[in-house]
């Protein structure tokens, strides 16, 4: 059930993200990219396999049963990916604002399509 919910969630996020990223308005593109990155981040997280109630940090010394712990690597990876994705999206936002200032339109090509 947990797997199904998670994969449906990722699917909806990625599908909406791809659709929005293809839209002609810069704001739609940036929201689409954000949704895509949420989907991707969930996917990275899920690659450590889904477990409940397991800590990723093991105690020091003695025998440790790895089955009782969650895989820490994807959690570290997803943290890095979130930070980098956040920074680049913020940068993209600035560029979008600059493009809006230069062209006076929020179309991705910098000019409205002629009707």
């Amino acid at each position: 059930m947990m797997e199904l919910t998670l994969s449906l969630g990722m699917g909806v996020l990625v599908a909406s993200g791809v659709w929005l990223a293809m839209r002609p308005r810069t704001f739609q593109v940036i929201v689409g990219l954000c949704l895509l990155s949420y989907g991707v981040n969930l996917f990275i997280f899920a690659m450590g396999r889904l477990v409940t109630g397991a800590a990723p940090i093991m105690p020091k010394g003695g025998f440790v049963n790895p089955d009782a712990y969650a895989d820490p690597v994807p959690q570290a990876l997803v943290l890095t990916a979130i930070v980098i994705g956040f920074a680049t999206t913020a940068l993209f936002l600035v560029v979008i604002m600059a493009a809006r200032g230069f062209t006076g339109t929020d179309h991705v090509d910098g000019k409205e399509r002629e009707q």
Partner: protein
Amino acid sequence: MTPPPHIIVLPILIPLIAGAIMLMYDERQRRLKLGLGILACVLQLGVAIALILRAGGSSELGRNIVTLYLLGDWPSPFGIVLVLDRLSALMLLLTSVVALPALIYAGAGWHRNGQHFNALFQFLLMGINGSFLTGDLFNLFVFFEVMLAASYGLLLHGSGRVRVGAGLHYIAVNLLAAMLFLLGVALIYGTTGTLNMADLATRIPHLSEADRPMIHAAAALLSGAFLIKAAMWPLCFWLPNAYGAAAPPVGAVFSLLTKVGAYVIIRLGLLLFGPVAGESAGFGAQVLALGGMATMAYGSLGVLAAQDLGRMTGNLVLVSSGTLLAVVGLAMIYDDAPMLTGALYYMFASTLGLAALFLLAEPIGRKEEGIAGLLAVTAEIYGLDPEEEEDEPRQEGTAIPGATALLGMSFLACVLVVAGLPPLAGFLGKFGMLSSAVQRAWSLPGMWGHWAFVVLLILSGFCTLIALMRWGIQSLWANSDEPPLPVMEALPILMLVGTVGLLTVQAEPALRYIDRTAEALTENAVYIGGVMTAPPVSPEALAPEPLTPEPPPAAAPAPDASGADPAADSPQAQAELP
């Protein structure tokens, strides 16, 4: 005598520290920042030369040395490693050889056109160098993002409507590529449980039937990200716009960025899906070969269609990277080291030529008439703004006499290199590729892929020649103005052309080095052995047993603790193959 092993981490540390120091000075101290930047680039060049001597082996020929640097001193497959082998040393040298002239050129005026140019330039170099050195997929992602974030800033440097428009598309495309990269990395980790490239290569032949499609899907996603960067058709639509809009020194260093994508394709393609990869051998090679050839064709047509030199050079970047990708594809299918030699040599020479063309575009275009009149007619079709010229920086420094002659000769040299005509280095590379392709095609009938490649390679050189000569006649011959050419702009162009000349004169050692590189690439046991057998430094790190049974690579050479003993402060291991 070998240099100390810590030298491997220097190509990352030097630009990082230089860039960080620059951030502390405000924009009024540009001269200081420029001086610091040039110093950092000179240091990187020195380090790159030392590393290439190290990777090539100092005493006798044919030694392929893989040097490892354990960051954090975890035992090899678990921690993040930096790996230096022949290919990465070659790419580091290419980076520093292109970066130094580009920065000097920027010092002639462009670095004054916006904020933090020098710091961004150093961070870009850090990302590029890190991508070449890392032996870990996720670390590669981080360095990729460092490089891309800096490249966004540099592309927008100088601002203006065209640049911001091109930057918008460039950033969107690269953000999408980053998502593909992350998906691929996560899938690889979920399937194999490792992100170390060498460890991955040992596991791929032993994957279960259920896991194999997963790793193929992951590889396809990953190569999607790298092929966007390397600009393989049909993922290359963004490149001519972005590169044409960038400031000239930025365009020159950007000619390196496609090579980073191509480098990762070469590295991972031959390491993970080389001939020893069991059932996965040659996965995706046809796509690379066909896509590379399509890129060559598309780039050649683009060169013919382009009207200004910046755009032409953007399309030539496509041709250069398409050639390399096609050869990698063919080499993966047929295990063809000699062709790879030619391609790597051509890549080195053509990148220098392309960087010089990016730099040449501005001083030649400063003439009043000539191409400018033609441009005004066609500029609108291509979305270029004719009135964009006002953001050109004020020039400083004394102009040198005989500018037209100097520019003309440099332009000619670049054309010869990029089109692959004798007597310069581009010809040697192309000749190497052609002769081994034809040889291969004769010996095995039905090799239409090789014939198609031969035809496309000759045709693309021909198209390049036509387009560049047409442009050169219009703007250099049919125009008698003497453009002002400051020393700071002439010097970097001469440096790049001089490096091409050096590469031509010293073709024998260069080709020998690259030949060994290609051989080492097709036999990846050396790389894997070098990475997997590294002893950690501190005694307690030796204690944990590897959690998974590690199938030792078949031809793994014994680790050779040259230099200091492993318990001293040398986190470094060497594997040598005579």
